[in-house]
């Protein structure tokens, strides 16, 4: 087999060249059998670098190339496109990763260089046996599923619908709105959160292109980019939203009272209830768990009084199956559990609130109509201590990361408090203030100067109840003094953590999470709204702590990526798929069971690969005891020769 291979070694600035003698790699590979051209360049991915590859393909009549550079995740596509531009089949281009797998993990140039040579040589051996392939064309479904109905999901759904796409919006709770609907005013402009969000929620319910599925969750996803099959489980709608007239006749008769999660348990609600007056869908909901049993003999009081006939205890949960082209995961955040914060009472002191509870107290639609009152005795607190970084920036005990928005919302809370309680005093304990953003720094400064909030730089070591007050023991590191405050109320700015639903959704969608549990993006800088799985995109606080403007930006960015994907008539599926050698296959079905994508079936006693479903992972090839199945361009023979190249010399 005579091939005409070109080898191109990249310096990656000094990323590779500092640890690997790139010239030596190029020179050595130039001597290898079948290599007719080799060179090195400072940035192979730059325009002149790519042009040099194109020129070499033409000038030296190359039939295959190896680019020795960074990881294929980053630039395989770049250089396959370059090869195609040079007139070569793109699948005759392979990447040798001498950056992540060599330069970055070694210091000793004398040892790293021979390793880089081996890695490159292995790729040369591999490409010698590459087949020329053509991508497989797959039709696309022009329908998008958005998971999570917070501001991220709402913005995504509206943008998509306005661009002409059909959208299915799936929300776990009885209403859309997410955490934003719980907020009172929003920094830095102090505009009312509900006033800016409610119209968008109504728009969602009115848009004919949006199918809204509340009290619903995605239970399974199969298929692949452009052609997902998604099963959505919906709780039984005991109250029919079409019939519910919002008359509120049912709640006074319901004998049950349970904590109201929408008010963060500051108030109670009935088993039949409406989360908010502005809830979308605009309907009451029956909480199956709290209800005495959905049995008219036991209770049935709500059904008796409901004149609209909206209540039916016999409806069943349902499963709906959708064909979907792309998915946006916007499952949001939760607050770090107060129970972990032993120094602040583990959530046992009623007057130690979390940020969202304080939002509810400030909100005109909240439990107190917007008056700041202590939960324990419903009196107005005169000294309120806000503690930033509760659970953030504490790698030893809690979350290592900065939650990014708490400096801003604490400044907002302190400001709102000063506006509402004129003879009160707000204190803020902080580590340092991070107020990057348009108008953000000015907002914090105003809270200090105009609203006379007292900022104390330091941590609080302990909060405990003492004589009807909360004793706050802290330190002011600027004066070096210990500070003790007898507070009436303490508000914790707890860390933002990925919501419980985010973990569940990641599992169902089979997308990665980062070390802190947030949804992982495909590239932290260049692909921030894509997951590593094709066709699944990320938006909002599920991907990392962020405020509303950033969430909205990300949602619209994810939508633009979806539109890019779905505006093509056909998608290209990689042709590096499994191929069965019928003569060797005995039909034992081991590969059928092993394939994680259910791409293999038995046809006439032989394994048959559905090329559109096959992801080329190679699990089948590793399983087959007869070597009857191989992935194209990563055959067992190729792997064997690559190993030999690495071991030899």
């Amino acid at each position: 087999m005579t091939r005409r291979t070109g080898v191109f070694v990249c310096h990656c600035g000094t990323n590779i060249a500092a640890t690997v003698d790139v010239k030596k790699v190029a020179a050595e590979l130039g001597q290898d059998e079948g290599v007719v051209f080799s060179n090195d360049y400072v940035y192979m991915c730059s325009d002149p670098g790519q042009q040099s590859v194109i020129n070499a393909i033409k000038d030296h009549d190359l039939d295959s190339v190896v680019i020795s550079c960074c990881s294929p995740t980053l630039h395989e596509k770049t250089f396959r496109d370059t090869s195609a531009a040079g007139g070569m089949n793109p699948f005759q281009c392979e990447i040798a990763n001498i950056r992540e797998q060599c330069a970055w993990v070694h210091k000793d140039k004398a040892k790293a260089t021979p390793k880089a040579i081996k890695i490159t040589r292995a790729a040369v051996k591999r490409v010698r046996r590459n087949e020329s392939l053509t991508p497989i064309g797959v039709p696309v479904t022009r329908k998008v599923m958005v998971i999570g109905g917070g501001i991220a999901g709402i913005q995504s759904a509206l943008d998509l619908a306005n661009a002409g796409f059909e959208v299915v919006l799936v929300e776990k709770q009885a209403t859309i709105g997410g955490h934003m609907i719980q907020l009172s005013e929003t920094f830095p402009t102090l505009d009312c959160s509900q006033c800016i969000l409610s119209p968008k929620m109504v728009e969602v319910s009115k848009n004919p292109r949006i199918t809204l599925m509340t009290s619903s969750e995605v239970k399974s996803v199969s298929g692949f980019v452009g052609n997902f099959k998604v099963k959505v489980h919906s709780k039984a709608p005991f109250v029919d939203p079409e019939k519910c007239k919002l008359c509120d006749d049912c709640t006074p008769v319901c004998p049950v009272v349970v904590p109201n999660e929408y008010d963060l348990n500051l108030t109670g609600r009935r088993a039949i209830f409406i989360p908010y007056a502005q809830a979308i869908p605009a309907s009451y909901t029956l909480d199956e768990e709290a209800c005495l049993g959905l049995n008219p003999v036991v209770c049935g009081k709500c059904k008796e009084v409901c004149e609209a006939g909206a209540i039916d205890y016999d409806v069943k949960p349902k499963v709906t199956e959708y064909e979907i082209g792309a998915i946006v995961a916007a499952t949001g955040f939760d607050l770090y559990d107060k129970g972990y914060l032993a120094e602040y009472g583990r959530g046992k002191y009623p007057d130690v609130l979390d940020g969202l509870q304080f939002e509810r107290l400030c909100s005109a639609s909240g439990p107190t109509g917007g008056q700041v009152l202590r939960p324990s005795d419903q009196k107005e607190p005169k000294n309120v201590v806000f503690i930033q970084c509760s659970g953030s920036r504490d790698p030893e005990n809690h979350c290592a990361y900065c939650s990014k928005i708490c400096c801003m919302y604490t400044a907002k809370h302190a400001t709102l408090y000063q506006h509402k309680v004129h003879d009160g005093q707000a204190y803020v304990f902080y580590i340092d203030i991070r107020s990057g953003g348009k108008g953000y720094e000015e907002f914090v400064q105003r809270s200090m100067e105009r609203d006379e909030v007292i900022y104390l730089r330091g941590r609080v070591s302990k909060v405990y109840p003492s004589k009807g007050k909360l004793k706050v023991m802290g330190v002011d590191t600027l004066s070096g003094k210990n500070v003790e405050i007898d507070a009436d109320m303490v508000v914790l700015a707890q860390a933002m953590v990925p919501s419980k639903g985010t973990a569940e959704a990641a599992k169902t969608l089979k997308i990665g999470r980062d070390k802190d549990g947030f949804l992982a993006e495909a590239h932290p800088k260049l692909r921030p709204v894509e997951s590593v799985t094709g066709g699944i995109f990320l938006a909002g606080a599920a991907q990392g702590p962020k405020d509303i403007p950033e969430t909205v930006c990300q949602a619209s960015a994810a939508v633009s990526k979806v539109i890019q994907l779905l505006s093509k008539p056909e998608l290209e599926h990689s042709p590096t798929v499994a191929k069965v050698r019928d003569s060797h296959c005995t039909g034992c079905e081991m590969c059928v069971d092993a394939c994680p994508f259910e791409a293999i079936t038995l046809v006439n006693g032989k394994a048959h690969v559905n090329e559109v479903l096959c992801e080329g992972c190679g699990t089948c090839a590793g399983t087959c005891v007869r070597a009857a199945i191989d992935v194209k361009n990563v055959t067992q023979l190729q792997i064997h020769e690559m190993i030999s190249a690495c071991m030899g010399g």
Partner: protein
Amino acid sequence: MFFGKLKKAHGKVIINPNWCKGCGYCVKYCPTDVLEMSKGYNAKGYHPPQVKAAADCRDCKFCELICPEFAIYVTSDKEEEQASASA
């Protein structure tokens, strides 16, 4: 639950142990799990039920309806009693 004045419905369960034949229906079917079987015997030699969680009674009167021997009934609490029960 600190704010708002929602009151849970509350009833008082009254048991006539000597009418009980120990079938256990009330214990099994109470939606809020207020009752349990006692260890003691009644005049007929059965274990009658007893109240284990009085505060949880939501006054649905299902036990009253389901008891084959009319051995159990519920009286609805007055307004002020409801208030103290829901605190």
